[in-house]
């Protein structure tokens, strides 16, 4: 046997366990789910198709269609607000905070990362509740005459999400900012740009690839999350993951849950293609 063939055989042997794991526990379940989405529920039993009834239902039934719209609205809103809040924070830490405090500032900015995800949403439920700290302060300061309902509304969901993703985006944008050579800003200043112009016309565009990558990550994680909308948003308007869990819990409707999951995956794939295309264009 030639050395090259031995090498290839050994390489393949090493890759095989991981590949098998991925095939058996990721690809196979996915195929099973895709197949399941083509059957439908009659009474309590699954009637195997293949048919497209679930998909037809998703795009005609108001409650399901609304779930998709709600998920998209919340996700886009969260992504935009998070980027808008995280960028200045990352910039201030990277340029305004003295070097020796930088690491500490960054550590503080992502500190709540280290509580558990479920507990973080719960904490916001505490803070935003009718008797919570925020309402107490606002009423106490006389800014409100009586507590306003925030919990179990979309505002609570968005607040919880933004809190998490500001931390995530601050990290990605910060790492992008510190890689930029200070010479770009210096050159622009020498050429007469004001400080705002430097940020707006030079620094911001240079960080866009990092921002887009972070925003995509935010989009994917946000639209697929069940915990935050369930704890903070309540049951007034349901997001796509909440609808998926509802199909399972209340009716045991695996076919519909599978079909909704595939719709969710389709949305994420479309977002990915949009970002990839944009990043590619940027590079050319």
């Amino acid at each position, binding site marked *: 046997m030639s050395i090259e063939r031995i090498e290839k055989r050994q390489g393949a042997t090493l890759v095989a366990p*991981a590949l098998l794991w991925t095939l058996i526990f990721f690809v196979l379940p996915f195929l099973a789910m895709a197949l399941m989405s083509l059957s439908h529920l009659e009474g309590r039993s699954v009637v195997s198709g293949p048919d497209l009834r679930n998909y037809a239902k998703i795009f005609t039934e108001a409650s399901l269609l609304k779930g998709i719209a709600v998920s998209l609205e919340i996700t886009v809103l969260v992504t935009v607000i998070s980027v808008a809040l995280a960028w200045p924070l990352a910039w201030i830490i990277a340029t305004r905070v003295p070097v020796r405090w930088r690491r500490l500032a960054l550590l503080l900015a992502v500190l*709540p990362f280290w509580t558990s995800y*479920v*507990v973080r949403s*719960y904490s916001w439920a505490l803070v935003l509740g009718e*008797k919570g700290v925020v309402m107490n302060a606002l009423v106490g300061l006389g800014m409100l005459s009586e507590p306003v309902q925030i919990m179990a509304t979309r505002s609570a969901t968005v607040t919880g999400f933004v809190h998490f993703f*500001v931390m995530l985006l601050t990290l990605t944008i910060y790492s992008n900012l510190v890689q930029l050579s200070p010479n770009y800003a210096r050159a622009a200043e020498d050429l007469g740009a004001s400080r705002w112009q430097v940020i707006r016309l030079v620094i911001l565009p240079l960080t866009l690839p990092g921002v887009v990558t972070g925003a995509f990550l935010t989009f994917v994680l946000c639209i*697929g999350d069940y915990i935050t909308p369930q704890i903070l948003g309540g049951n007034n308007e349901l997001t796509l993951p909440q609808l998926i869990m509802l199909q399972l819990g209340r009716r045991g409707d695996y076919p519909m849950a599978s079909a909704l999951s595939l719709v969710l995956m389709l949305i*994420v794939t479309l977002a990915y293609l949009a970002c990839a295309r944009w990043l590619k264009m940027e590079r050319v």
Partner: protein
Amino acid sequence: MRTLSWVYLGAIFTFILLPVVVLVIFSFQDGRLPVPPFKGATLKWYAKILGDRDLMDALVNSMMVAILSSLVAVTLGFLAASGLARAALPGSALMRGLLIAPMTVSYLIIGLGLLQMFNQVGIRPSLLATGIGHVVINLPLCFAILYAAIGEHQKSALQAARDLGAREWQVLWHVAAPMLAPSLAAAFFLSFTFSWDEFIIAFLLTRFDVTLPVEIWSMLRSGLSPATNAVGSLVFLVSVAVVVTLELTLFRKGSK
């Protein structure tokens, strides 16, 4: 702009730290509800949760699932990364893509797929099933970290070991593993964190023995309670301790 910067920093840090501060303060609440006014400090909620059998069982379960699934994920990722760095295999781009693919799919969908498959072949929801799910979500991460860590320099060191007559397992154990030790540790700790904190897969794939996030979830159903604050504060404390330890030991060398 300087003042504006500091005002902004103050405001956003308040926003970021507020829930954690409130969580910790009201875990000491001497009263039934973890909301203002603060009625005085007590440790009774901590005593209560530390004496709670279900909660402590869940904690041990989480620890086990996190350690074992991370070990499996790191091992599989390490072998695959070494294999793909070893030789130009036909279809290696495809294999890399396949190994990374689970990263782009939401945990809910991975959990749902596994639940359906396990149902069909008759595997009951259990900690083992959850562990399998956690390997699925962490394997891409471990593979990506380790594959990125094997550069040209590492490749030639491995080749040198082979040329000097080392067997493949010897190359992996005596050369590759020590050389990649920092990346292996990073991959393990990241996997551990993700598994430790993962909720939805564990929620779908466990029934009687549950993990900590699932147990906390069921605590939430009984409404707000300082006991939940105490659990959250403890988890937070442990994680911060781990992070600070890592910061002071593992990453200190790197930053200098």
